[in-house]
Structure formats: structure tokens, C-alpha cells
């Protein structure tokens, strides 16, 4: 018999606890105490169990997890005896426990790390393992802006099973996003892109499996070819974060700051990972174009994860010089949801609304509404 596959499991026991009692998040010990006082009941155990049950008969699988509420309980709830590692203080787990657990899973050589939580949990996992370990989120948090989560626990389980059974081999870099919870509770939305986790990727759960496709990679190459071919001399190209825009710098043979903004002039990199002030400096006396993509599953074009490209910069560059790029697959996944912007400046937001042509491939455009 072939060696058993190893599945790492991390449950953030306080994930989602703030949501049902209206606390807009669960980060910080004080909030967690407050939530419990308001009568919050953790749902995360249920959701982790649902996902594990979806994997089905797990004889072929070794589950490695942390004690008690951080995973052991969820595994046992499905009648599985997991290998338990590490130690925790029951009832007092912290973000550091998640990070420690993730690092331990990496050392244990798990084939896939399944974690239940929200944006905060995804950040902790990302901080600990980066892109060194395939991971996948079971959505259980209040804030789910990160694209590393499956749409629900059932599909998380299904995707994990397909990956572990070698039925899908593709890994896909998905955004780890988080809001500043403190600001969020004050009514201010400020999301940051922290990085990318490698998640198992089935072109889309909506896709007919029988349809051959060359995958999203081919779409990205086709987009890059289009954008690069149409690049003009002496124009500044402000290139936003993401794997879609990285395909463009790849086509140019340049490096890319995955979660930052880079600037290209005459097909050369002139500045990497710039902030707003640096951009304003570079813009002096130059014509510029902005190349951005939208965030998967959400459709945000400006204001989430690319705040360096500030309203002032967008205004200076002008609407007609904004190039939005997206694979058709990413657009399909949005369904009827419109694209949107939230730059923090009402006038700029208004200027950006209306219909835009999104570059979806070589000589291919989709007209989508920005609201």
C-alpha cells in the first residue's frame, strides 16, 4: 500500500466568535472575552467537522493536528484518531499558537494544511509558512476577504480530498487579505494585501470537468502579451499587486513585488514596491498608465490591497489611462456582481464608475460595470 497522505489541520477556536454578536471580527483577547460575554457560541468546530466529513473515508489519510479545540476535537468528532502534536493552554489560544502550529505542520511534512478561521487566521498561516506549503481555508471567520478560503466547508473538504487523492495537481496563488479590525469597528474599511498562499485549484467549481481547458495560466500569458505589445515608449506604467499583473512583468522579463506596486518605464523597472509619495514624485512631468487587476471573488479594483495608488494618483493619471486586467475565469466567478472601487475619495470613486473594458486576453476585452 502506498504511503498514507498527511493532512495538517488547524482550527482557530475563536474564529468567527465576534460575528454573530456584531463585533465585526474576533481579533484580540479583549474582544473574544466580550463576545463570550455577549453569548457567542463558537461555530468553528462544526464547520471544521463538516469539511472533514466531506473528505469521507479517511483511512488513506493521516491527520496531524494540535490538541483539543485547535483540531483534535474536530477530528475526533468525525471518529478519526489524529496524530496530536504541540501543546496549548485550553481556552486561551492566541494567534501565536496558530503560527506555531503552522510551522510545526511544515516540519511534519504534511501534504496539505487545512485551516479553519477567518482573515486573521489566514494571515497567521501565511506568516508562518508563506508559499512553502499548500494550504486551504475552511471559512469560519467574521471577515473573509482572503481568496484562500473555499466557498463553504463542504467545498473545502471536497477540494482537499481531490488534491490529496492527486485528482487535481494545480496550485494557485490566492490572496491573503485582512482588514484593520480596529478601524473596521469604527466604520472605516481599510484592507491590506498581506501575501499569497498556495491553494489547490480546480479551474472553478462551476466548470464542467469534461471541458478541456489550458487553465488560467494560459489566460494570464495571453493578457500579458496584449498589454506588453501595446506598451508605449516614455509612458510610466504603474503596475499594481497580484499574480495577474505579475504575468505582465514576467513577459517583460522583470521581477515583481507580488504584494506591492512597481513602476516600469520603457520596459525597464524604474522603482519597486513604491508608496504614494514615491509615485507622486515619479509622476512629475510624465504621462502614466495604471495597470491593476481585481480581487478574486470580490471584484474590487481600487482601494483594497493597492492603496498606494491613491485617489490623487488615479486622478492625475486619468480614467482613460487605467488598464484593468483579469482572466475570464476570474470574471466568470464574479457572476452578476459588478466591479467596485473604494479609494476613499468620493469624486475619484465617481469618476471611476461606469463601464470599463477589462483586458481578458490577447485582443480580447470584456465590458464590465464599475459601481
Amino acid at each position, binding site marked *: 500500500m502506498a504511503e498514507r497522505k498527511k493532512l495538517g489541520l488547524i482550527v482557530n477556536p475563536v474564529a468567527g466568535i465576534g460575528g454573530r454578536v456584531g463585533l465585526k471580527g474576533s481579533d484580540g483577547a479583549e474582544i473574544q472575552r466580550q463576545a463570550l460575554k455577549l453569548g457567542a457560541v463558537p461555530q468553528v468546530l462544526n464547520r471544521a467537522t463538516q469539511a472533514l466529513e*466531506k473528505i469521507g473515508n479517511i483511512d488513506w489519510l493521516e491527520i496531524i493536528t494540535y490538541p483539543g479545540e485547535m483540531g483534535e476535537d474536530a477530528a475526533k468528532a468525525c471518529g478519526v484518531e489524529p496524530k496530536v502534536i504541540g501543546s496549548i493552554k485550553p481556552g486561551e489560544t492566541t494567534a501565536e499558537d496558530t503560527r506555531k502550529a503552522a510551522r510545526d505542520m511544515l516540519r511534519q511534512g504534511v501534504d496539505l494544511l487545512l485551516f479553519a478561521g477567518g482573515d486573521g487566521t489566514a494571515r497567521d498561516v501565511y506568516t508562518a509558512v508563506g508559499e512553502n506549503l499548500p494550504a486551504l481555508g475552511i471559512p469560519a471567520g467574521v471577515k473573509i476577504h482572503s481568496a484562500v478560503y473555499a*466557498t*463553504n466547508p*463542504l*467545498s473545502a473538504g*471536497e477540494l482537499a480530498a481531490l488534491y490529496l487523492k492527486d*485528482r*487535481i*495537481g*494545480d496550485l494557485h496563488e490566492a490572496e491573503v487579505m485582512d482588514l484593520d479590525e480596529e478601524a473596521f469597528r469604527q466604520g472605516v474599511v481599510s484592507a491590506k494585501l498581506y501575501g499569497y498562499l498556495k491553494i489547490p485549484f480546480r*479551474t*472553478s*467549481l*462551476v*466548470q*464542467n*470537468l*469534461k*471541458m*478541456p*481547458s*489550458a*487553465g488560467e495560466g494560459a489566460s494570464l500569458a495571453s493578457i500579458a502579451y496584449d498589454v506588453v505589445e501595446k506598451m508605449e515608449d516614455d509612458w510610466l506604467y504603474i503596475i499594481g499587486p497580484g499574480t495577474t499583473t505579475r504575468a505582465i512583468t514576467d513577459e517583460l522579463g522583470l521581477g515583481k513585488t507580488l504584494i506591492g506596486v512597481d513602476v516600469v518605464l520603457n520596459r525597464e523597472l524604474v522603482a519597486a514596491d513604491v508608496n504614494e509619495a514615491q509615485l507622486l514624485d515619479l509622476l512629475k512631468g510624465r504621462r502614466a498608465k495604471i495597470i491593476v487587476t481585481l480581487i478574486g471573488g470580490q471584484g474590487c479594483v481600487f482601494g483594497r490591497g493597492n492603496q498606494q495608488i491613491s485617489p490623487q494618483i488615479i486622478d492625475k493619471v486619468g480614467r482613460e489611462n487605467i488598464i484593468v486586467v483579469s482572466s*475570464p*475565469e476570474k*470574471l*466568470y466567478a464574479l*457572476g*452578476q456582481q*459588478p466591479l467596485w472601487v473604494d479609494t476613499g475619495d468620493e469624486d475619484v470613486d465617481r469618476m471611476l464608475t*461606469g*463601464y470599463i*473594458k477589462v483586458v*481578458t486576453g490577447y*485582443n*480580447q*476585452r*470584456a*465590458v*464590465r*460595470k464599475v459601481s
Partner: protein
Amino acid sequence: MAQQDITQQRYTDGKPNLRRFHQARWDEPINFELSREGQRGVLVPEVEEEIKDQVGDVLATLPLTVRRKAPPRLPELSQPQVLRHYLRLSQENLGADLNIEIGQGTCTMKYSPKINDQLAGHPKLAELHPLQDEDTAQGILEMMYRFEGMLKEISGMDRFSLQPAAGSAAIYTNASIIRAYHKSRGEADQRDEIITTIFSHPSNAACARTAGFKVITLYPGQDGYPDLEALKAAVSERTAGLLITNPEDTGIFNPRIEAFVEVVHEAGGLCVYDQANANGILGITRARDTGFDLCHFNLHKSFSSPHGCGGPGGGACGASEALAKFLPVPLVAYDGEKYYLDYDRPDSIGKVRPFYGDAPVVLRAYAWVMSLGAEGLREVAEIAVLNNNYLLNRMLEIPGLSAPYAEGKRRIEQVRYSWETLTEETGVHSEELGIRAADFGVHYWTSHHPFVVPEPCTLEPTESLSKDELDEYVAIVSHVTGEARTDPELVKTAPHNSTIHTIDHSPLDDRSQWAMTWRAYRRKAGGA
């Protein structure tokens, strides 16, 4: 599962029971694997010496370039082996003549009358050769000419070419005519953009790209209908034309289609009506009356000629008077005494295929229209729409199903449904429902590109089916979704009563494993 009484009636209280169906399952190898050296179907006798002396070496008369250096490596089989092989394969099929074929939406799987096949196989047609002198082929030319007249009447267009071999070939032809038109006005370089909608037949975008155009795709507006404002944002002095299907593959008829045509015309572009989904509008709306410049019909769909597994089909292209000069050559013409092939068309885009149109396909379509008459054609459309909306209402009674975009509105001749809710509740996917439905003897299909509707299923009942048959189909789908809720594993491990097994689809996503020929397969699979 308990054995059911085999003598049980097909109906209970007037409603059909689910069939106790079991399909043949042969584990039949492919014919290359059945091959054994020396097995023969026909042994052609050696040429007698006397004849050889007279005729000489026949092969030597062939040019070197067309002579094989080695015999072809065809499978070696006897006649009964070949017969058994294909009979077995046919038993592992849920063909259109075998099942209640409404599950292949967008394909208009209507009944293809068998008598028309007999006509097409009649020696008077089958023994004709397209290179025959036109004086000796007046019958088929007359038929083509008269059929063109029918299509002109149905669409309002002024001329038709029957030459393109299928729908996509016709769309490509129309895209080529758009280019020829702009070229004739000196604007070919400037006008390089074609606009289409995401739920138009995907061939519109694909053929426009193949013909060298840039493609702009519109998404539906918030009301679920094609978005007129998006079109206004898309047109410019670069607009070459609009390629649009109506009703779209969702079954939604664009209520603003006249405004679409107007906006594109004002921008200087041409409008092409893809009438692949014409089955619900025959005799009701006409492309030319709406202002379209070009259109095409699929003779193998709307006009009952069978689909033939990808061919032969027929994609008849229609043009307005102003654009007729660009149609492919030759057109079939009549000088008052005889029918002839008109090659004297200097502005024509040329040929898109050899000869003049697939004669047996045209004959079947012609016979079909003749058997119906104008009133009958309209009735076809009306029944197709009635059937579809009855089916829509019955289907929506099944929990977990929706008909996204313009919800609550009626559809024309097909619907793209979504099982998103059912999948969320049960984890069972649309495709798995379809495989399980095969256990009850019916075919069911999800969707082709674009994969916008989650967990899709596309049904098109056409005019050919009775209410009882629609009810039987709904009962099967309803039963299978019930199983998804009570015993999802049963559905996910299907098929149980039909052919073979599920296959591993992952190589389809891996270009390095694609093999278009047996030889390529053996090379890539490491066999030889």
C-alpha cells in the same frame, strides 16, 4: 434495492413510473486494439495476368507525391468483427433516437424524420457528383434555389449561400463579409473590433478572433438582459460589427435588440444575427425586419437535418441586398430556363468550402420545410416555446434549482438552469446528477463555455416531445435530486445501470497529455 415486479405497469395513476433501465456494457476495446495481423474483411483478388498485360501497372499512373511508400497501418479486422464492434458501441450510447433527448440544450435535438434520411440516401441524390455538368444536376440545383427562397422568406434577407458546412463556418463567413465590406469602404484597418455578448453562441467570439478581429464581450446588466448601456460604452469608430445570438444560450430574448442594432449602425458597424437558436422564433420574428445586415441558420439544428456527430451540417448565410455581393461563390441562380452556378461575382469573399453546400443536408431541410408549410413552421416555434416554458415551470418545482438572469421571466426555446443551491446543500454537482440520470435512460448535459452559471444544466425540449415525455424527464431529474439529498454517495458513484464508469478528467486540463490521434496517444502514454 428490492426487486420490482417486472409486470408492473409503466404508469401509476396516469403518471409514468421511472424506468427500470439497464444499459449494455461491453468493455469493448478500440478497433486498433482488436486488430490481429492477417485478419481481413475483404480479400481483393489479384488482377488477372491478361488484364495486367493490357492495362499495365495502374499504380504507376499515379503521381509520386500521392503514392504511399508503405501501406497504411489500419486495424486488421474481419467483417463480422467490425459489425459487432460498432453495434456494441452503439448500444453504449444514449443517442437522440433512443432517449428523451432534451438534455442537450443549445443543440436543438429535434426529431429528424427518417423518411428524409431515405430521400437523402436515394440513388438519385447519392449518385450525383458535385463536378457533374450543371445541365445534368438541375434537380438538386432547383432544390437549392427553392430552399434559398424559403430562407429569404423566413429571415427577410435578400440572398443566401448554402456553402458553409456548419454554424461556426457560417459565422466565420459572416465575419469575413464584415471585413470585405469595411475594406470596400477603405476602413478595414480602422474597424477591427467585433462586439458580442457573453451568452451569445461562443463561436461568435471565437470566429471573430479567428478572422483576425479584436473581440469585446458584453455582460448582462442588473436586470439579467443584455446590457444596452454596456454596448454604448463599447462602440466607437473602431467598431466593425456586432455578432449576437438571440435568444441567447440562456433562452432569454433580448427585448432591446432593435436598439442594439441601431447603436451599432450609428457607429458605422454591421450587425450579424446568429440564428443558431432560431427554433423558437421561426415565422415570428425576422432578422432583416430588425435591421440586421447578415444572419445564418443551422440546417442541422433548426431545420431537422441530424447533427451527425460534428458533421455534416449546414450553415446557411443570409445577406441584405447591399451585402449580397460579398457572399461566397458560387451562388445558385436561375435564368428563367435553367438553374446554374453563378461564379461571376467579383466582390465575393471567395470560397469557404468546396462546392455549393452539402446536398443531402439541404435536401433534408427542404423536405422538412415542405412537409410543414409556412403555418407549420410557425407552429414548430410556438410548440417549442410552449414545451420549454412548461418544462421551466415543472423543473423549478424541484428544490435547489434556479434559472438565473431575468428570473421569473419566460424563456424562448431553452433554459440554462443552475443547481448552485442543491450543490451547496448536498455537495452533489450538476455533472454528477447527469451521470446518475443516465441510469434511468436519459441524457443530461451541463453547459459549454462560458462557465458563468454555477452548476449549470441546459435543457431544450424542442417541438418534438409530448407533455408525457417532458413529465417523465422531470420525474427522473426530480428523483435523482431526491437521491442527492438522501443518499448522495449513490449519485456520486453513478453510473450503476449504464455504460462503463466515470473517467479521470484531469488529463483534459493538461495540454502535455492531449492526444489527437491514436499514434500520438501511444507515444504520450509510452506504449510505442
